């Protein structure tokens, strides 16, 4: 189907189902229950899940296939964001031109960075990409402030010219839209104690994610993808087989940079502000972690990794002691305090600690990332139901 093998098509269907039903999947708890804190089905976080998913998918095309570890990929996302915001400021609040320009600008920037950085391999390549990204960040924060609005981040203002749109509507800035459908528009569906939110911006991002994921599958299964895996495996044999590494690597780098730009463009389409921190090395490191955590070189892994990290950042950081006391309120007072005291360091301001511990646990116990964890669980079920013939997979899950 769609030019995919059955296995890949099944994976695509899973992703489609996951993204389209996300408002249900991510809101498993009734609004007023104590566990509602763990609901993630609100527009902003759902958007973030898929946007960072796209970013990680793109990064994985470079890192997962070729093994070249770029430590400056956030620069492309940042550059794309700036381009997108400028488009929203100058042209129209329709998000299509903004997203397109984000992709193009990020692509061009990655041609430059890639052309230079790909002259080296291994850690030397990583440091070159890191250097470019850090320079972009430092300059965007300071010298390039007229272009980037520095510390605050580039944002819309009430006097943007907007050639193909309106500058302001009664003293407010118009919202980004897709041919009239506002990115912020949402439906709420209330089912008993549950509430599910369907947001236009999220569904736009989700459709883009599905397309990006489909494209990634095609790339993975294409001769081009095969060549990229060959680069990772043996560069010497590759050139003595008459293949020119450089254009292959550059193409992979640029495709992956354009994915980052796409993510950046979507980000500003959802929320029209581009901050310089988006390009800092920590942001580049984050996508590396997402990819490794999910499972580098696998198709679905990076998306899972992105969801994992964003979930902790947004959900765990918001749990405070008041919430804890609510949760454990049923316990006797003394015990309640003890439990709160024990849990306290890991939530709220301690969310970093939890994340760090989980990084270590995952990499120690699941060397193949979250995907391997999924396979292990899947394996348990298969043992019970041996009818499923796909259990014998030799390659790492793809």
């Amino acid at each position, binding site marked *: 189907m769609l030019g995919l093998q059955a296995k890949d098509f099944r994976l695509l269907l899973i992703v489609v189902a996951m993204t389209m039903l996300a408002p249900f999947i991510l809101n498993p708890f009734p609004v007023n229950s104590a566990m509602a804190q763990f609901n993630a089905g609100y527009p902003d976080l759902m958007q973030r899940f898929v946007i960072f998913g796209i970013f990680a998918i793109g990064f994985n095309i470079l*890192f997962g296939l070729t*093994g070249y*570890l770029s430590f400056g990929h956030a620069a492309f996302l940042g550059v794309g964001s700036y381009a997108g915001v400028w488009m929203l400021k100058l042209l129209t609040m329709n998000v299509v031109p903004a997203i397109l320009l984000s992709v193009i600008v990020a692509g061009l920037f990655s041609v430059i960075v890639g052309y*230079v950085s790909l*002259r*080296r*391999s*291994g*850690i*030397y390549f990583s*440091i*070159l990409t*890191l*250097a*470019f990204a*850090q*320079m972009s960040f*430092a*300059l965007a*924060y*300071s*010298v390039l402030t007229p272009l980037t609005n520095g510390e605050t981040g580039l944002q819309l203002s009430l006097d943007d010219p907007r050639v193909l749109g309106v500058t302001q509507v009664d003293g407010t800035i118009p919202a980004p839209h897709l041919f009239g459908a506002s990115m912020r528009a949402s439906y709420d569906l209330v089912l008993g104690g549950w509430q599910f939110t369907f947001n236009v911006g999220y569904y736009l991002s989700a459709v883009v994610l599905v397309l990006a994921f489909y494209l990634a599958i095609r790339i993975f299964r294409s001769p081009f993808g095969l060549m990229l895996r060959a680069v990772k495996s043996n560069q010497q044999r590759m050139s003595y087989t008459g293949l020119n590494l450089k254009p292959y690597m550059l193409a992979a780098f640029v495709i992956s940079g354009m994915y980052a730009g796409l993510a950046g463009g979507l980000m500003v389409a959802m929320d029209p502000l581009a901050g310089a921190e988006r390009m800092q*090395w*920590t942001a580049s*490191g984050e996508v*590396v*972690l997402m990819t*490794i*955590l999910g499972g*580098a070189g696998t198709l679905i892994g990076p998306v899972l990794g992105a969801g994992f990290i964003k979930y902790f950042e947004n959900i765990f950081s918001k749990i405070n002691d008041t919430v804890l006391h609510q949760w454990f309120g049923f316990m006797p007072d003394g015990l309640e305090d003890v439990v709160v005291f024990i849990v306290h*360091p890991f939530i709220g301001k*301690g969310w*970093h*600690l939890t*994340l*760090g*511990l*989980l*990084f*270590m646990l*995952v*990499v*120690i116990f699941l*060397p193949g990332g979250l995907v391997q964890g999924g396979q292990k669980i899947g394996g348990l079920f298969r043992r019970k139901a041996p009818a499923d013939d796909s259990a014998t997979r030799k390659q790492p899950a793809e």
Partner: protein
Amino acid sequence: MDAILLQILNGLDKGSAYALIALGLTLIFGTLGVVNFAHGAIFMIGAFCAVTLSRLLSLSHPSAEPTGTDFLGNPKFDDVLYVNEWFGETAGAFIIDWSVPLAILFAIPIMVAVGFIMERGLIKHFYKRPHADQILVTFGLAIVLQEVIKYFYGANPIPTPAPEVFRGSFDFGVLLGFEANAIIYPYWRMVYFAFALVLITAVFGFLQFTTFGMVVRAGMADRETVGLLGINIDKRFTIMFAIAACVAGLAGVMYTPINSPNYHMGMDFLVLSFVVVVVGGMGSLPGAVLAGFLLGILESFASMPVMTSLIPGINQIIIYLVAIVVLLTRPRGLMGRRGVMEE
């Protein structure tokens, strides 16, 4: 001229810090082939050894009689320091004043233990794993370490002054015939530079002149062969890791009077020290030291107003610019060896 001399001096102590951290990092790279993202955190732990010691030395109990009222109007009790009680006021004050240098003695066993536990407990299991896994696990470890420190010491910087005698600055300019105040340099930074030189020399001497060092150097060059000789290289590498941790930790201890330590100082140095190591060339100890000082001095030059007015923002990007230029002209950094971490 004096401005240039001044910036060379400034570059030296910045370079000392870079060189010391990079030295430990490259020892671990070179000997163990591990990308250690927790190295910055080790530097930070070293700095907090100094903080901890000064806290320990300042342990006190409240005075018997209230000496006034606190901000809420409640009776307030003075803190009576145990050191003062035990050693007398003068000696007590002296000990507290010298807490940073004393922390070196305090830090050595702690850092060795930290290095030993890290290597045996965690890093050891990742030698054969891909670099990606090493990055993930050491990054996770770095986060955990710094969050633990944040939990106990807060996020605010903690002032840890140098001993009284080393405060203030020395006027080099007068010595060299310039006018007064042209080239001033703080005493503690001189101490730091000298300390760095001693430490670097010690590490080099150790590797150069002891059999232990020879085996380790041979292991850096060709791990498998040395393994084949039946030498237990793993045990030596554990010790090497502990030494690397110690070097970074001591660099951190002595750094505290220069800038008040905080929990994320390790991350601030981490990326820079990676750049230093790579610019120096993977697997090359002299390269790391050279690149540390070189980048420190260039960074100082770039901060001169003349430079920033010439190229706005040059002080923001100089290190990365130099890294790019070096890596494009010298494929393996200044003194790197072929084949180390090129895949």
